């Protein structure tokens, strides 16, 4: 019995082994992208059909679950294309000899069902695409004689299209890598991108390639005609090098040179850095009022920075210092300068800054950290103009002289004068000081009694002026020559009656109030109310000083 089994095994087993494939290639079929569904579309129908078809052709197709887990592990978010690292990983982790992926390019069903399919077959040993297939098929393309057995639906279209594409599938796939493994740069860093002369540049490169100790290449970085040896760090798995820049301003490309012991050489461009040792040029324009060579303001000042040579700005800082050098305000930012700054005149405590001279300075750093500074003085002036008022009589009229004290020119003034009864006598306004204003006071009822007064004790009749007209006024005792009174008091009158003197030197002491507004060009406003302009008479001022009353001159002759 055992002999029979042994004989069977001896003859049948080689026969079975001969019929089975000697070594089935492992094929990974990635889900087919469907561009007709957008950038993230996937067509499982074509993917599954391809898996079944390839299985039928004798390939060892990797299971879907394993493939999806691989894609998730490698964070593959796009279909339709692969990168070298994905292909190498698929070989290492899935054991794939070949990778098949592709795209359903067009798919429209509204008019006549149509499909387009593009497939790529990649050899994982050297990541080379060794076969591509591409075709499009519409229901209108399937034409039979006399229209017999023609189908208008998309039924069977996908299978037919896939078969069309696979028609050119190679009978004998060459799995031997024909090309050298490419130099794969997984990542690189070249910092800083902008440097000054004397700064240090750091460069490191991570390569995906692995070499044996015998074939380990030497790696250099080349910049500005100089070569720097890169040192391999096992901890970070990077090739590092650094060097000090000693070149004039300009852009310098950096290349990586790989020298293998066999003499093979490979040069790859890494990036470039720019040497910039020239600081930016900057000026400040202050939008304010020029006063004695300094820009002055009351509420806020607009500061406009201007680059004389345009170049990108990395960061900036604006600060305002008082005359003691203490910082009152500061602000900073990154990136390009704002179009303008505004200082609202507040100090660091949040209250309006005191009057005085302040220093506005703006510092600007370019990308290579060259710094430029522009400084401008600015004056804060908040004191309103001081009013200077003087009034004097000219006969029956009054002259008012209005001026101001201070360095800030006046932008506007206004004076409004009212009589003792509140009525407006005069309003004047203008833009320049000093100014002289003539005030014509309204005439009061005047009784001309000159001739009659010469006879003491004489009774005069003032028919036109008094009411009732027939009233008789006694003026005897007031008109004595020694009494040089200018005013005649009429005792018998119903109400006290003031009679103006006739001579021009006589003064009108009726009350005149005034309201004065003065605004300077910075916007500071002075508003004052004068109760009686008589108080601003020079004589009155003198009287107030000596407290003496001088008699009118004209009474002597009288």
């Amino acid at each position, binding site marked *: 019995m055992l002999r029979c089994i042994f004989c069977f095994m001896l003859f049948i087993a080689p026969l079975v082994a001969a019929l089975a494939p000697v070594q089935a290639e492992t094929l990974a079929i990635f889900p087919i992208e469907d561009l007709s569904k957008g950038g993230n579309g996937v067509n499982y129908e074509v993917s599954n059909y391809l898996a079944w078809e390839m299985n039928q052709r004798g390939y060892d197709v990797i299971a879907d679950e394993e493939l999806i887990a691989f894609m998730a592990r490698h964070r593959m978010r796009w279909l339709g294309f692969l990168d070298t690292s994905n292909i190498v990983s698929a070989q290492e982790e899935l054991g794939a000899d070949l990778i098949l992926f592709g795209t359903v390019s067009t798919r429209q069903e509204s008019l006549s069902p149509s499909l*387009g399919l593009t497939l790529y077959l990649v050899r994982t040993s050297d990541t080379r695409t060794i076969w591509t297939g591409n075709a499009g098929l519409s229901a209108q393309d399937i034409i039979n004689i006399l229209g017999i057995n023609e189908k208008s639906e998309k039924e069977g279209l996908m299978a037919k299209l896939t078969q069309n594409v696979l028609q050119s599938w190679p009978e004998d796939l060459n799995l031997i890598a024909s090309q050298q493994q490419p130099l794969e*740069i997984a990542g690189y860093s070249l910092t800083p991108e902008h440097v000054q002369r004397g700064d240090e540049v750091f460069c490191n490169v991570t390569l995906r390639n692995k070499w044996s100790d015998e074939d380990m290449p030497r790696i250099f970085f080349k910049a500005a005609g100089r070569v720097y040896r890169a040192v391999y760090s096992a901890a970070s798995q990077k090739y590092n090098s650094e060097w000090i820049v000693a070149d004039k301003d300009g852009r310098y490309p950096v290349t990586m040179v790989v020298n293998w012991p066999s003499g093979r050489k490979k040069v*790859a461009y890494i990036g470039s850095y720019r040497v910039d040792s020239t600081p930016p040029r900057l000026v400040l324009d202050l939008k304010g009022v020029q006063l004695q060579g300094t820009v002055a303001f009351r509420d806020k000042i607009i500061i406009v920075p201007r680059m004389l040579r345009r170049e990108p700005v990395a960061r900036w800082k604006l600060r305002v210092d008082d005359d003691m050098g203490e910082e009152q305000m500061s602000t900073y930012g990154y990136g390009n300068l704002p179009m303008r700054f505004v200082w609202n005149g507040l100090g660091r405590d949040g209250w309006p800054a005191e009057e005085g001279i302040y220093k506005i300075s703006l510092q600007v750093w370019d990308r290579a950290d060259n710094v430029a500074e522009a400084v401008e003085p600015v004056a804060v002036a908040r004191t309103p103009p001081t009013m200077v008022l003087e009034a004097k009589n000219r006969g029956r009229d009054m002259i008012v002289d209005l001026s101001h004290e201070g360095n800030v020119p006046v932008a506007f003034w206004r004076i409004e004068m009212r009589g003792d009864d509140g009525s407006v006598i005069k309003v004047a306004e203008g833009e320049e000081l000093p100014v002289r204003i003539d005030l014509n006071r309204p005439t009061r009822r005047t009784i001309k009694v000159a001739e009659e007064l010469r006879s003491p004790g004489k009774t005069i009749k003032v028919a036109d002026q008094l009411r009732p007209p027939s009233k008789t006024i006694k003026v005897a005792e007031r008109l004595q020559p020694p009494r040089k009174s200018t005013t005649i008091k009429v005792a018998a009158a119903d109400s006290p009656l003031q009679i103006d003197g006739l001579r021009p030197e006589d003064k009108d002491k009726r009350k005149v109030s005034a309201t004065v507004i003065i605004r300077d060009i910075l916007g500071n406003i002075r508003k004052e109310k004068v109760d009686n302009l008589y108080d601003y008479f020079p004589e009155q001022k003198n009287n107030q000083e000596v407290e003496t009353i001088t008699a009118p001159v004209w009474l002597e002759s009288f």
Partner: protein
Amino acid sequence: MYALIWMKKDKLSSQLRTWGVISVLLPALLWACAKGDAPVIMEMSGLPFGGEICRVAVLPFTNQIDYRMGGSVFTRVFTSELIGKGNYVVSQEGDVRKILQQMRMLPGETLSSEQLRALADRLGVQIVITGAVLEMRDKTRFGRKLDPSVAVVVRIMEASSGRTLWTTYNRSEGTHYRVVMHFGVVNTINELAKRSSAEIIDAWQEKGFKKCID
């Protein structure tokens, strides 16, 4: 008298010559219209390495029309034809996209010569192919029947300098490939893009862009 006869003879021969030219050119013209125009190639400079080029990178074509994903469709088909017709070693699209991403380039943005050089260096390619889809439609204007058309401009750029070497324009319609009646008419964008790509690559190879023997 002789002069008059000579003039009449000359006029007659001129008319015959004109009709002869028309009779020859008209069928040729009709045939040309039916087949569509051949790709127009503008050669700014010669190909490097005497046209013996193997390593090629294809950048994603820009989509200048409102056909959805038109640039991607043509890029995939063109790359497929390039590999199929010339056995070229074309860089993986994923590698190209990764480098563009590292350069912070957006789709459709034009690469500077320095960036192009860096990209080519990283991929180890000799030339870079890029282009734009200028026209792509699969139906007639009112959508009543299939009538695909594709127009593209494709550029070959030198990797070492970043300059444009060749520029090719090609436009084709589905009806250009009609043999008789409705036979031969191309009804899908994919098939038309394939034919258009093949025409461009054939024209390049005729001009000296040699196949890769590797």
